[in-house]
């Protein structure tokens, strides 16, 4: 049996799959600060026999929480002489252009704990100055006195030659065996010293926290008799064994959210849909990601806490490309000084939450607007909803300033929120040269099913899939993942002088590294599958295009082929090509999958040919058309092959699916809901 648990803000979800392909799920409360307790609770509640668990997969927010709450350990940095302030200077940018009191991100390590040693390479990785060990010894002595708990080692050009970093890390471990050490090349093999330093510093900062969490969970599971393999979900959309999660916890920052994207890709492949737009609307944010021909896109251009007006902290680790905006069910609608209406990014959160929760919320949220327009039912909330109060708040804060009715104001909030979400969806599709009409949307999270049918219509998407497991979709995604390692090696090489032999050597080094790591974890060599990408650009350009490139041995012809794909991809993305301009490699990106055995998903019993019956009808306020009588179905009463026409609502306690007039819905053989946009039920 495979079991996945996903620790979210409010709930810890569990999804399991039996050897027969049967899926089941369970939910339990998240239990901060001892998050492992929630995991044990939900396991207990699910009544799974611990001994049956062959594979245990875990997604956690512990890492990102420790980072954003700055609850790491006292960390010291050792870096190249002349460069201890790199972490504080950063990139010097001030995104809040017209604010002359901007404060940039504070370095995670204060200046007194940032120390320098003589050790210097040039950009080719040649040694200009050997590592002076006596300097290092003096620093370690100081760090001991200062009660430092973790050390980060970052030297210039270590992506080209890691020897000095290895030497320093070995010496530190020798002098101070109990200290936690991270050397930058272990985490990042790309250039850009600020980004690499910050990533390494943050990994060090949380490493002891992550190790203690993973150990506690491991121990508790073992005590209960779980003997199977244990994995943690990483930000690259694949899993890694517990041991790796302890060394490089920084790879787990987006542990939960990416699993949903990966789940969307897997669901697509099960349903023979190769091109997917994953769309996830939660309580505070909406996230989307584009999957082309089954490939989840991964890059290292990731930041935490970055906003339009704040630089945030860069983490050069492989993360699934997700665009996230501050628009979720709890996002607040508010008026700027100018009188313009905005929705989000401020959120009412879980407490006090929307006005509808009755827990003291006084600002109108998207959820409140969905209630007033009849898209959500007050009967599906945990506590009784005071609809008069919800309407009063929307009247006072939005309707009156604009001189419109309450329902028009509520619809206005939804339209503005949809416009924000639409911009995010365009960012990953149209703006990158993709035609959304070639894609199917997979919508999940509490609000995804509610907003997706409208947004799909706007984008020209023809089909929306609401997964059967939409309420626990991240955990479902984890269940479906393979092991995955992404290595991105900075490699600067012009095409005109590129030697296929040397490139073959580079690739084989990367493949061997990945293979060795898998072998250490006892994975069979035949289960490992490689995918290669190259980051390529026009010479002189900064931004590279990630080009899928062939595996195996490269010849000169291979380079010609890659050359052509680059020009095509560049034109697709940026509308033009410079056929006569030279191009160069900037990075080699190897993805190593460790394939796991999964039974095929079981189809539901479709012998029940009963037509769908609406439980009731209620009025829903639609764009352009106003109030329409709308049939309401209970999701739990739907069976495979049932079909229905919009306007319709399919709801359960977790969420609500909105089907517009002229749209049609059918239930597939796995219990997924398929919405056909713009007429026609399809095959």
């Amino acid at each position, binding site marked *: 049996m495979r079991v996945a648990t996903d620790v979210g803000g409010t709930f810890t979800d569990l999804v399991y799959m039996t050897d027969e392909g049967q899926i089941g799920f369970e939910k339990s409360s998240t239990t901060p600060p001892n998050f492992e307790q929630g995991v044990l609770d939900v396991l207990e509640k699910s009544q799974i026999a611990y001994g049956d668990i062959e594979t245990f997969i875990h997604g956690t927010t512990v890492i990102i929480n420790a980072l954003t709450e700055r609850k790491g350990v006292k960390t010291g940095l050792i870096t190249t002489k002349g460069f201890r302030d790199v972490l504080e200077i950063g990139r010097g940018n001030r995104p809040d252009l017209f604010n002359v009191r901007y404060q940039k991100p504070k370095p995670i390590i204060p200046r007194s704990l940032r120390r320098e040693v003589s050790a210097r390479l040039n950009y080719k990785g040649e040694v200009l100055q050997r590592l002076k060990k006596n300097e290092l010894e003096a620093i370690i002595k100081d760090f001991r006195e200062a009660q430092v708990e973790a050390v980060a080692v970052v030297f210039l050009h270590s992506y080209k030659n890691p020897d000095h970093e290895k030497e320093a890390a070995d010496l530190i471990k020798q002098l101070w065996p109990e200290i936690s050490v991270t050397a930058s090349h272990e985490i990042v093999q790309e250039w850009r010293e600020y980004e690499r330093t910050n990533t390494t510093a943050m990994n060090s900062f949380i490493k002891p926290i992550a190790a203690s969490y993973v150990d506690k969970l491991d121990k508790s599971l073992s005590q209960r008799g779980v003997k199977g393999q244990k994995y943690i979900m990483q930000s690259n959309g694949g899993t890694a064994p517990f041991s790796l999660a302890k060394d490089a916890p920084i790879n787990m920052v987006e542990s939960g959210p990416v699993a949903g994207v990966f789940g969307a890709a897997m669901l697509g492949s099960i349903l023979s849909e190769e091109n997917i737009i994953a769309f996830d609307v939660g309580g505070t944010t909406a996230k989307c990601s584009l999957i082309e021909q089954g490939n989840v896109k991964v890059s290292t251009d990731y930041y935490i806490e970055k906003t339009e007006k704040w630089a945030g902290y860069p983490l050069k680790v492989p993360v699934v490309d997700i665009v996230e905006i501050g628009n979720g069910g709890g996002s607040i609608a508010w008026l700027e*000084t100018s*009188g313009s209406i905005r929705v989000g990014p401020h959120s009412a959160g879980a407490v006090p939450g929307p006005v509808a929760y009755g827990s003291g919320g006084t600002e109108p949220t998207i959820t409140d607007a969905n209630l007033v327009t009849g898209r959500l039912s007050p009967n599906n909330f945990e506590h009784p909803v005071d609809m008069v109060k919800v309407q009063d708040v929307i009247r006072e804060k939005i309707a009156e300033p604009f001189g419109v009715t309450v329902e028009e104001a509520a619809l206005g909030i939804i339209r*503005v929120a949809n416009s924000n979400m639409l911009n995010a969806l365009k960012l990953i599709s149209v703006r990158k040269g993709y035609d959304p009409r070639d894609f199917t949307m997979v919508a999940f999270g509490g609000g995804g099913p509610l907003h997706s049918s409208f947004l799909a219509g706007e984008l020209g998407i023809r089909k929306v899939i609401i997964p059967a497991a939409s309420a626990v979709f991240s955990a479902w995604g984890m269940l479906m993942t393979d092991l995955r390692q992404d290595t991105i090696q900075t490699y600067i090489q012009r095409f005109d002088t590129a030697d296929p032999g040397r490139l073959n050597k580079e690739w084989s080094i990367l493949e061997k590294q990945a293979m060795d790591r898998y072998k250490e974890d006892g994975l069979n060599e035949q289960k490992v599958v490689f995918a290669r990408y190259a980051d390529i650009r026009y010479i002189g350009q900064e931004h590279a295009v990630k080009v899928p490139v062939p595996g195996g041995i490269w010849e000169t012809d291979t380079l010609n082929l890659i050359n052509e794909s680059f020009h095509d991809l560049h034109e697709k993305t940026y509308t033009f090509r410079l056929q006569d301009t030279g191009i160069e490699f900037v990075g080699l990106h190897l993805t190593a999958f460790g394939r796991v055995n999964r039974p095929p998903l079981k189809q539901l019993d479709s012998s029940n040919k009963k037509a769908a019956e609406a439980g009731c009808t209620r009025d829903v306020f639609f764009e352009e058309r106003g109030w329409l009588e709308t049939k309401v179905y209970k999701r739990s009463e739907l069976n495979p092959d049932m079909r229905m026409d919009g306007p319709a609502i399919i709801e359960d306690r977790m969420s609500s699916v909105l089907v517009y007039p002229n749209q049609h819905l059918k239930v597939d053989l796995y219990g997924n809901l398929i919405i056909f946009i713009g007429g026609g039920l399809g095959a």
Partner: protein
Amino acid sequence: MLEKQPDAFTLEIVKDSLVSISEEMFHTLGKTSMSPIIYEVLDYATGITDPQGYLLTQGNGVAGFIGMVSSMVQETVKKYGCSLLPGDIVIINDPYNGGGSHLSDVGLVAPIFFDGELVGFSASKAHWTEVGGKDSGSFTNDSTDIYQEGLQFPCIKLFNEGVINQALLEMIQANVRFPDLSVSDMWAQVASLRIGEKRFQEVCVKYGKQTVQETSKYILNQGEKVSKKVVQSLPNGEYFAEDFIDTDGIGHGPFKVRVKVTISDDRFVCDFRGSHPQVPGPVNCSYTTLVSDVRTVFLAITNEDHHINDGVFRPLEIITDPGSIFSCERPAPMSIYWESGSMGGDLVWKALASVLPEKLGAGHFLSVCSVTLSGKHPDTLEPFLIVEPSVGGWGASNNEDGTRGQFCIGDGETYNMPVEIAEARYGILVDEYSLHTDGAGAGEFIGGAGVVRSYQALTDGQSLSVSFGRHDHVPWGLSGGHNGSGNHFFIEKQNGETDGPYGVYARYPLNKGDKVKLITGTGGGYGSPHDRDIGLVIEDVKNGYITIRQAEDIYGVLLDDHLNLKGLARQS
């Protein structure tokens, strides 16, 4: 065809669509450019205007371009009127007429048509690495007229109905030092304009032309309304400031400049009359530049939401003498125009800082602090060219220390060049990139430190040009805070000699092993150093931001070698 009057929410949604067009144009340009000055420094802007050339939305990387998109579109409208056709693109960099800053910043303007009617313009302005002229990198420290500074594009057609003007293109290629770079930047701008045009037309299709036009009016009127509301809330009165621009780069100076800011109920008037006349060296700026820099400070005071369009600036009036250093006339040189332009903005800031402490802190290092270094790469033997601004120290404010190591007000979403990339790409070794903690800018809240960035030449025959303003006239302190320190650089030669300090210097020769230490200033402090929290003073010493000696002499905090408090010597 009559369209339904758009409701309030539709106006907002269309407005959002227009904002996202400028952003998409901005990203397209940045992603496709081949010049570090564009993709790292983000020295470019994109925008959408209405058919009259009033800015509706702008995508910005730097603050300094706010005001320059509309000036070049308006110049285009003035020159071509109704004769523009779909597919036309105009190229303009003439600083005296709509171009604004200096010749390196090249503007492209494309009319947008829908249903045969002119509905707006998409435009962009970007710093090309090369536009010819007497020095490599084009902008220079010691030009004496505009003709030495490069090619001038006086608002002429680069495209006629979608067809490129081949003769003009070849002229550009023949007159610039790195034609591949310049031409690729041109294509990046064209791609950006085409995207803007396409998206604008899509919005017209979706919402109707009339709704888009209504939205344009709505945007401008709303901008005006917000600004007026804030201006009304400011204390009425006349505020004054004076300062000096160090030098013109060719031996003259300093030059006295002044402002009188008059705030009334609905006007915000900045009067620079009486400032120094235009000067022989290239530190002059055009009136358009002055407008941009004053607008930046005006926005810092009035606009928290950052919806920026021409309506916002309706209450703002800027007066100066024609032919002054702030409004020079042909053929005055203006290659390093920011030295005067930024000073213009800084004067307004300084005049108002003590009455608006919650918005404005003490003075900062101010200058773009540009560095141009050319030479040969030791391995490829190909020529390289560094063109980069520098980070420096910002002033403290009424409740926070100043920021350390950050680009100046005229820059913005500007990124420094990573050392590892610089060393691979250029013929230099970076010896140091660290904070320059000189103890200046003392106060209850301390000014942020500048930085030291040292380059060691790896080949003979390199040439360095540096334009560091605020070398002699340093960042000002506020409310009893100490002044900051000046920007400067030294040369440490291979033979052990040192030379400097200098502020502005053209073409300093560097040979293999010579080092240049580029040092930017500390920002001004706020409040008396004796009011600084004692715990913070101890932390400052521990972190090496100040010395034990400075803690005692300046802050009145006496510490022993283990940083234990020995006593206080403070005036209460």
